[in-house]
């Protein structure tokens, strides 16, 4: 199968959906023909589809999302790009109070098919305002769906599903993943929401990881296999809906779980997954649930500081070894 990057996979999804459905359009800061997206995901789209459908906006995050909402409830399928996920804070009322709630408040009279694409994640030394992982904020808002692909294959398949979905989808991209290459078929496919993917099968311990942490977990699993520890790595791929069953089933088999996410530990994604495992499969656990996440600090700038707070292979291996004995 051909190999393409995560960035190109996302672009293919956008392009194919824009060709398929003329109500699909893209808006955001510098997504148009001049800059072509801060991470070049929209490169070439303005040339192909025109400036009306690949629309540069003012620096107005709240209105980018609000305008997307207004267009969505009147027949369009907007894809809004927030240049850095951290800046979603500027649009939080529109996301959490409007986009997420319009359908419910109005008794199901409308759908709100908005996709909000956002690069998240640390590791490129751009400090506290451009490096966070804020999945948990949105996981706490009913009405929002959350997709977070870790591979080019998942990126394309999930983005196509997000665009076709009738509900708002927060689409998390990790900025370190854009250049990652992986197999992506030429032919059409989509990936359903709420279906986790087992990235590596194993018998001794379940590791649930998301986004860039999937790759750290896989690297750790490889090292652990040399020591005779067989790690299963599960990527939920969407947090809302969350494929609880796949996680619980894996735990029933391994009896152990480590949850690895890049967000802050307190009230983070890992806390929710740990609670589900405790509620639904406590009797199957042979050891305490372990969580590997960022400490509760903002993301620091200087490389040694930043690397200290981001979970890595070492911290994953340490957590696994604490419960596999």
């Amino acid at each position, binding site marked *: 199968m051909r190999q393409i990057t995560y960035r190109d996979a996302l672009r293919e999804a956008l392009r194919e959906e824009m060709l398929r459905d003329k109500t699909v359009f893209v808006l955001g800061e510098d997504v148009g023909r001049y800059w072509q997206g801060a991470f070049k995901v929209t490169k070439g789209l303005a040339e192909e589809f025109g400036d009306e459908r690949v629309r540069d906006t003012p620096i107005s995050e709240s209105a980018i999302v609000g*305008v997307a909402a*207004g267009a969505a409830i009147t027949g369009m399928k907007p894809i809004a790009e927030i240049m850095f996920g951290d800046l979603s804070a500027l649009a939080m009322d529109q996301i959490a109070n409007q986009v997420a709630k319009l359908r419910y408040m109005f*008794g199901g009279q*409308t759908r709100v098919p908005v996709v909000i694409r956002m690069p998240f994640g640390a590791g490129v030394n751009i400090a506290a305002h451009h490096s966070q992982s804020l999945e948990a904020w949105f996981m706490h808002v009913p009405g929002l769906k959350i997709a977070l692909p870790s591979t080019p294959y998942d990126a394309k398949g999930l983005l196509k599903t997000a665009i076709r979905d009738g509900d708002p989808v927060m689409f998390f991209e990790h900025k370190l993943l854009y250049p990652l290459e992986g197999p992506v078929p030429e032919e059409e496919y989509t990936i359903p929401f709420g279906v986790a993917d087992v990235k590596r099968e194993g018998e001794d311990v379940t590791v649930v990881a998301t986004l860039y942490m999937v790759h750290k977990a896989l690297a750790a699993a490889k090292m652990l296999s040399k020591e005779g520890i067989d790690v299963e790595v599960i990527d939920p791929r969407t947090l809302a809906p969350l494929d609880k069953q796949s996680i619980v089933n894996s735990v029933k088999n391994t009896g152990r779980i480590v949850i690895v996410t890049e967000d802050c530990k307190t009230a983070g994604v890992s806390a929710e997954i740990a609670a589900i495992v405790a509620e639904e499969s406590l009797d199957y656990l042979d050891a305490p649930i372990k969580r590997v996440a960022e400490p509760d600090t903002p993301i620091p700038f200087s490389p040694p500081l930043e690397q200290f707070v981001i979970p890595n292979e070492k911290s994953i291996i340490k957590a696994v070894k604490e419960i596999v004995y």
Partner: protein
Amino acid sequence: MRTSSLRGKVTISREGYRLNLEKEKLLEMYRKMLEIRHFEEKAFELYGQNLVPGTLHLYAGQEAVAVGVCANLRKDDYITSTHRGHGHCIAKGAQLDRIMAEILGKKTGYCKGKGGSMHIADFSVGMLGATAVVGAGIPIASGAGLSIKLRGTDQVVACFFGEGASNQGTFHEGINMAAIWTLPVVFVCENNLYAMGTRQTNVMLIENVAERAVAYGIPGVTVDGNDVLAVYEAAHEAVKRARESRGPTLIECKTYRHKGHSRFDPATYRPKEEVEEWLKKDSVQRFKAKLLEMKILTETEVDKIEQDVIAAVEKAAKFAIDSPCPAPEEALEDVCA
């Protein structure tokens, strides 16, 4: 403003600008204003009988704004609304009974009891819903405008909000976006002088919100918001401009709410003289007097319309009261499509 009557058609002249309004149109506007007034009085009464859960932000006093603007709109045009939104719904053509049922939290309400007084919507008449976050509807209206532009129709959006909302960032972001993209949106600021209890003069140094239009390079006009024909005239021009793809307009309507901010507010922060002065300028009474003066209506007809409206509101209230509540577990429905 001068007016004259000619063969059932009324010509209103004002500074050289002429409008031709059919008698039927004027009567329809009057009837809508009365519907809003009586509807709000009824809602207030039902609240007193503990039939309305939560709170109420009554539109009474501001009828000329919703009616003067919506009288220029087609059924397929859109509006966005606010926490003080009953009047917008009625003016855009939503049914009184289903609005009242929503206010009472009933299953037959427009939102099946999930929205209530502050979140009524009727997508079937282009009423895109009321958001209760002040100013949040402004970018949403611009988005509906962008949708119209991309779909290539000649629809128009009217976006209602108060002068308080004009201090929100969404006002700046949303109107600027509509301006730069030449979107078919009419921004209607209902300046009732108070944001809850805070006087306009305490929170902005300009007298007219319409002056802010300069910052976006679009027309801004201030009109007497208690004169339905003045509102109609300004909205007519703005809607025409929007429909012809010439971009948005900001219309400021100076008006006054008869009651407090919400049901619990006795509005003691408003000087008695000020309230009395505004009550004298009541839009419904003024329009009625004008219609009588223009001999479009007789006293008998006035009474007949009023009785009809009262009967319609009573019927709506009865429908709402008699309607069932939603089943509790319906709370779990409609979160996602």
